[in-house]
């Protein structure tokens, strides 16, 4: 699979009837949030409960979702470009690694790992370059956040 952005328009893969799907998802989400809001207490307009505003919004969201779905049936949209999944997955994974790593493994190890994974989002990534970049970032972050701002961010893997 090539990066979608660099393909000629007709070669881009398209998803059929995307707005119909989007509309249905919006309706489903509105319903879900609405059901949750039922338990919060509706109250009266004069004395609104915690559920009044969210429930009203969910009703509105459901209507708008239905309008979107209806519109897509009346007038089919051309469809979306297939996005760059590789980039999305590696960027997301990098955040996951940072979130999981920062407390047990400390700033230096985690930032180098995060940089390495994030740079894999790009096909031209070179491991040595990424390691160097990660080390430089770790030092810069250490200077700004720990030395200058004095934040107690764990620096090295914690001793068990």
């Amino acid at each position: 699979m090539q990066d979608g952005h660099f393909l000629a328009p007709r070669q881009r893969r398209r998803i059929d009837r995307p707005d119909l799907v989007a509309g249905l998802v919006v309706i489903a989400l509105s319903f879900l949030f609405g059901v949750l809001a039922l338990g919060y207490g509706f109250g009266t307009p004069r004395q609104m409960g915690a559920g009044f505003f969210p429930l009203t919004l969910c009703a509105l969201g459901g209507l708008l979702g239905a309008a979107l779905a209806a519109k897509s049936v009346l007038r089919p949209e051309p469809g979306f470009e297939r996005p760059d999944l590789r980039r999305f997955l590696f960027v997301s994974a990098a955040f996951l690694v940072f979130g999981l790593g920062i407390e047990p493994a400390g700033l230096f190890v985690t930032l180098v790992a995060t940089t390495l994974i994030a740079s894999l989002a790009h096909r031209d990534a070179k491991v040595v370059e990424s390691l160097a970049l990660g080390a430089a970032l770790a030092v810069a972050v250490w200077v700004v956040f720990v030395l200058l701002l004095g934040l107690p961010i764990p620096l090295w893997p914690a001793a068990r």
Partner: protein
Amino acid sequence: MDVLALLAGGFAAVLTPQNLFYCFAGVALGTFIGVLPGLGAMLGIALLLPLTFHLPPDAAIIMLAGIYYGGEYGGSITAILVNVPGTPSAAVACLDGNRMARQGRGAVALFASAVASFIGGSIGIVLMTLFSPAIGRFALSFTSADYFAVMVLGLIAAASITNGSALKALIAVVFGILAGMVGTDVSTGVQRYAMGFHELIGGISLVALAMGLFGLAEVATARETGAGEGVRYRIGLRDMLPTREDLRRSILPIGRGSAVGSLLGVLPATGATIASYLAYSVEKRISRHPERFGTGIIEGVVAPESANNAAAQTGFIPTLAIGIPGSATMALMLGALMIQGIPPGPQLMTRNADLFWALVASFWIGNLFLLVLNIPLVGLWVRLVHIPYRYLFPVIVCLISVGVYSVALSSFDVFVVLAVGILGYLMRIGGFEAAPFLMGFILGPMMEENLRRAMQLARGDFGVFLSRPISATCLALAMLALVVPLVRFLRMKLRGGVPV
């Protein structure tokens, strides 16, 4: 004059080494991020938000504002030199600016853009200085019903003026408001949508939300342009000097551009991007040679450039004087104020007058900094366009992670960025814009509070929204903004045409 004394006080507050430093750092970072294609002022503000928590409120706001209008400048540099707008509002500068560059007059275009931006920005600041206090006083007469109606108008206007589908923008607004409901309801103490996470009792963190939407989602979808290739600019100061003819032809367009920009900055939801487009089309319409627009004439550069910077400044008027932001960037700015413990609203002008005037003074100084940064240092910025994307991803990801973690030293917030980022990514694929979502998130809780209070005072009578003139006018305008596109769509449909 009263205003002059207050402004003098503002200057006294800004002309401290610290505040000057933060102002300079803000505009320099803003220009930096603006120059990089595909990254906007939003990402800059989101990245810097956590750092500003450690600063006093005035320094924090001065710096964030600097990023915003610095970003507006920086975007134009990229637009002119490589025909890729660094920020959306710079897209118009591509039309004639890049043509000028191809004719070997890129340096003149950059100079003209910097000067036009400075003049436009300055006019915007003068208007802000003169009118904000009056608007603030007027806003003091607002009741909760009026506030609610103004916010409805702001959100609907924001949704109806988007690049994509207005319907999708409205949906984004609704879900943004719902995201704002997460946490403890202030009036009843009920916990909403917290799903058992005690970290969510205080609501979703604004920093995490902004970073997910404008950091993760943005980075994952930003287009690589390969724009830097082939640009070899060595620009000397002498190349930048415009001819006497250029100057003569620039004066009136700058004036008109500033006027258009100042007006549009104040209106809800319009802001810098639309201001620059409109200023360009105004110039083209009144020109005796409209066919020359797009061929590299200086009018096509200075008019939109003065307009977008004027709008960037006057956009602060509703945000600061009334407490209702007109755009997503302003909403983020308002959020930053709230995080600093400064409640938005007309009281801000009286209760936090020092901060307001310091901010106004910082605009003057920041715009001067930009002139200095842009004209002699433009060669430095040009080199930035060459930074390969494979370095940008990791740097942005790491800075976001550390930044959001540093706020509360909680990994939970990093996971919130991830979750919001995935949502933002899906929204982007589906054509739902992030900016209306953010506006809903920030305005939602205020809307609920004002609706609740209005209804309590009116004893549950919804008629109160129609009996107050301010509220009735706003709701009528909001209705209009909703109905006009719908009618247009249906009419096109009936005629069997393809709606635009």
